[in-house]
């Protein structure tokens, strides 16, 4: 991890978890990075290259938009379109 970067632990669910083949992934981002930066980084993983343009992301268990900035210790999750009920 480059100095000044923060580690972000990303949970994956449903179809995305199957794509990655793992329930979570750790990435490191510059301090002040936003959700959109995280998505760019995740798309560099070959398994997640097919992510849609704006997948739903939750930060600390609430839906977050792409401009939301991330801090050390945030609980971040990548959520496929929901299909409950």
């Amino acid at each position, binding site marked *: 991890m480059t100095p000044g970067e923060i580690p972000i632990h990303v949970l994956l*669910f449903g179809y995305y978890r199957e794509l990655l083949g793992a329930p979570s992934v750790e990435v490191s981002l510059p301090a002040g990075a936003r959700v959109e930066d995280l998505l760019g980084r995740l798309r560099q993983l070959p398994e997640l290259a097919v992510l849609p343009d*704006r997948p739903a992301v*939750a930060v600390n*268990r*609430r839906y*977050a938009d792409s401009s939301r900035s991330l801090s050390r210790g945030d609980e971040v999750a990548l959520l496929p379109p*929901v299909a*409950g*009920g």
Partner: protein
Amino acid sequence: MADPDLIARVVDRTISSADLANEIASDQDGAVVCFEGRVRTRNRGRQVVRLHYEAYSEMADETRREIAVEALRRHGARTVAVLHRIGTLEIGEVSVAIAASAAHRSDAFEVVRYVIEQVKDRLPVWKREEYADGSSEWLDGVSPPAEREGSE
């Protein structure tokens, strides 16, 4: 309503709206409305043999609670309860159960309707259908709205 009486859980055991209804019923209330979503044998023309539900449980519990609070703020019901089951469900089993109790029936109907629509729209739950031919597929879902942090 400062502290609405509500119950909201994700569970991996059998659920029923009747149990919920009896939990929430009150002597002050004249109307109870329940909803149950059940696993169907056919969906989009394919023969389903079972469903697998997966949730982001920690978030789902909070989302469900938010939905219930919103429902009671919007309508006059006194109580609403909602359970969503996760894990493997066979045909006919109940995936989601909702019950609301109110002095008057309109409120009870509207609260239950609001809750099920919101559950479908934003509860972080996913389902994979397993078919008679042995294949299985994640169901297309609804893209949840971005950024709800300001809404509470």
